[in-house]
């Protein structure tokens, strides 16, 4: 088994998995740089777990290859790969105590000096003193840390995490997100983290790949993905977006012009995925600002007018719904910074934004405005071309 010193990047080349007529993973190609924290993000059923299992060796790909550095590990069995997994259900061996669970991989590889290594690893995951307990006696969070220790102790070239925080409550999840990030930075191993929680992916990962129906829609740094999404799916899956259906009429100066609902908007060319034809004009709710209808709009900003139809006080912000003249309700998030009182329902307002915050995406013919967040259902997955 290769040691960590000649570890390399994890490369998936044309990876495909078909179950009968159903294609779970469709010609996936990506590179995970060595030592990075990589997140595979998507809704249930998008193929992210299947991809992970193919890297672990628990599923055989229908086509394609998995490379670790310059080693093709596609045909290797799981116990022959320098890859370990933290399972979603933890999969701790119920008949062994914590010590033996963590030591399991070391024993199979017939390594010596197991006890000090186990103790060190238990310290790393903050479970000192738990060595002789049984999994059944541990809480969810503790079990998760044992599963992590059990995988990490083998110093794999890649650590795979299959939605490991899914079963934890919110506070614990936040804690573990920070823990995992810290451990990854300390240990320097490549982490591949599969999750459906976009906040989790953005918080922890250096690179995020958004998956939908077996394909990657966009791959990049979380900020890049959020700031300039590639498709309507990414725009609505990662955070929330207001997407207005319109037609792009081509470049003009350094901008792309978009016509929607009788108005003309300009978006910088570098923020448009398409310059002609059916498009979405997208602005995120927190980039929209509300002014009373008669007020002047700051120079350079673009705007639409409407009526406040809903106002939800969420503590850190107030979330408005603004109904436009053509009936769509735009979402607007206004921080409760204390400088202004919230707007009442029924107020005539003007929602404005800086063009640098807008983006233009391709739109398929049957799609209209989209302003609600994507729900975690198969239907939502299938909507985007």
């Amino acid at each position, binding site marked *: 088994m290769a040691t960590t010193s000649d570890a390399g990047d994890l490369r998936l080349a044309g990876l495909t998995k078909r179950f009968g007529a159903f294609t779970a993973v469709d010609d996936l190609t990506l590179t995970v740089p060595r030592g990075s924290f990589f997140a595979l993000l998507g809704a249930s059923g998008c193929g992210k777990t299947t991809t992970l299992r193919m890297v672990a060796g628990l599923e055989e790909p229908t086509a394609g290859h998995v490379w670790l550095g310059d080693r093709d590990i596609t045909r290797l069995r*799981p*116990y022959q790969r320098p890859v*370990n*997994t933290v*399972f979603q259900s933890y*999969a701790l*061996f119920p008949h062994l105590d914590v010590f033996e669970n963590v030591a*399991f991989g070391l024993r199979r*590889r017939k390594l010596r000096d197991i006890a000090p290594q186990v103790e060190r690893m238990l310290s790393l995951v903050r479970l000192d003193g738990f060595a002789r307990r*049984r999994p059944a006696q541990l809480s969810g969070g503790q079990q998760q840390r044992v599963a992590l220790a059990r995988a990490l102790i083998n110093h794999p070239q890649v650590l795979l995490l299959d939605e490991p925080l899914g079963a934890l409550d919110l506070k614990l999840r936040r804690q573990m997100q920070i823990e995992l990030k810290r451990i990854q930075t300390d240990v320097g191993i490549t982490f591949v983290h599969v999750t459906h929680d976009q906040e989790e992916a953005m918080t922890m990962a250096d690179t995020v790949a958004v998956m939908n129906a077996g394909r990657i829609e966009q791959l990049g740094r979380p900020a890049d993905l959020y700031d300039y999404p590639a498709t309507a799916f990414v725009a609505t899956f990662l955070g929330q977006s207001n997407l207005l259906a319109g037609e792009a009429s081509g470049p003009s100066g350094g901008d792309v012009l978009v016509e929607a609902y009788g108005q003309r908007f300009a978006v910088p060319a570098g923020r448009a995925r398409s310059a002609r034809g059916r498009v979405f004009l997208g602005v995120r709710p927190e980039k929209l600002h509300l002014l009373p209808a008669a007020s002047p709009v700051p120079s350079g900003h673009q705007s639409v007018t409407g009526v406040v139809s809903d106002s939800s006080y969420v503590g850190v912000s107030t979330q408005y719904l603004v109904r436009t003249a053509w009936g769509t309700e735009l979402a607007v998030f206004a921080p409760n910074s204390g400088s202004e009182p919230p707007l009442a329902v029924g107020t005539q307002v003007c929602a404005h934004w800086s063009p640098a915050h807008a983006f233009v995406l391709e739109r398929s013919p049957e799609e209209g405005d989209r302003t609600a967040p994507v729900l975690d259902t198969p239907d939502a997955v299938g909507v985007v071309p």
Partner: protein
Amino acid sequence: MAYRIGRWIADHWVLGVGLVVLLYLFLPIAVVAGLSFNRPSSRLSYDFHEFTLDNWTGVCGPAGLCDAVLRSVQIGFVATVLSTVLGTLMAFALVRHRFRGRAATNVLIFLPMATPEVVMGTSLLALFVAGGISLGFWTIVIAHVMFCVSFVVVTVKARLSGMDARLEEAAMDLYATPFQTFRRVTLPLVLPGIVAAALLAFSLSFDDFIITNFNSGTTVTFPMYVWGASQRGVPPQVNVVGTAMFAIALLLVLATNVRRRRGARAG
């Protein structure tokens, strides 16, 4: 007050009936235990007569009784080992593997449990007679293994399918070869089911009468001894054996229960 009594009755009458039925189930056992201390007035009498400990001290008094018990234990042991092995292998195939002919296999395993013992016993007898095989110890063992296998399969299957298959994946992810996975993870977790199946097989074998009767020739097992004795008069030592069987089995079951509960708690 009457309302409270009424509610209590409404909530508890089912439990009451259940307990009555349970007592009914134990009534003959109590009688057997009582009779084991009984000195009957005559060979053919089944009534209580006089208390005595002689039956327990002289349990091998009646000719052939202890031989029959020994024979039953021997047959039980061999049949248990064979049927447990065969049945466990089949259970693994059914739960962990895909293969063609699954429905046919299920039917083949199910049928012996649905067939009356008379039919199974007589069909085996007809086979042995047609094949010229002399009846005795080994024909009994063959018959017992035949009807025990199905019960072993069901018991082990239940335990095995309750075991999370992802534990085996986790083991392989942690460098365990398939053989190591089986030895270190699967087997320890299935073992209680296998043990339960073995105990079930032994008790089925020990207690079997009908199939044994048809295929035993001159060999005498404990149930056959009792059957024969029921014509001539059953010696009270038979009840001693019956009570002892009950006590041993009960202790075994309670012990495994306690052990399992303690294991889960302390770890």
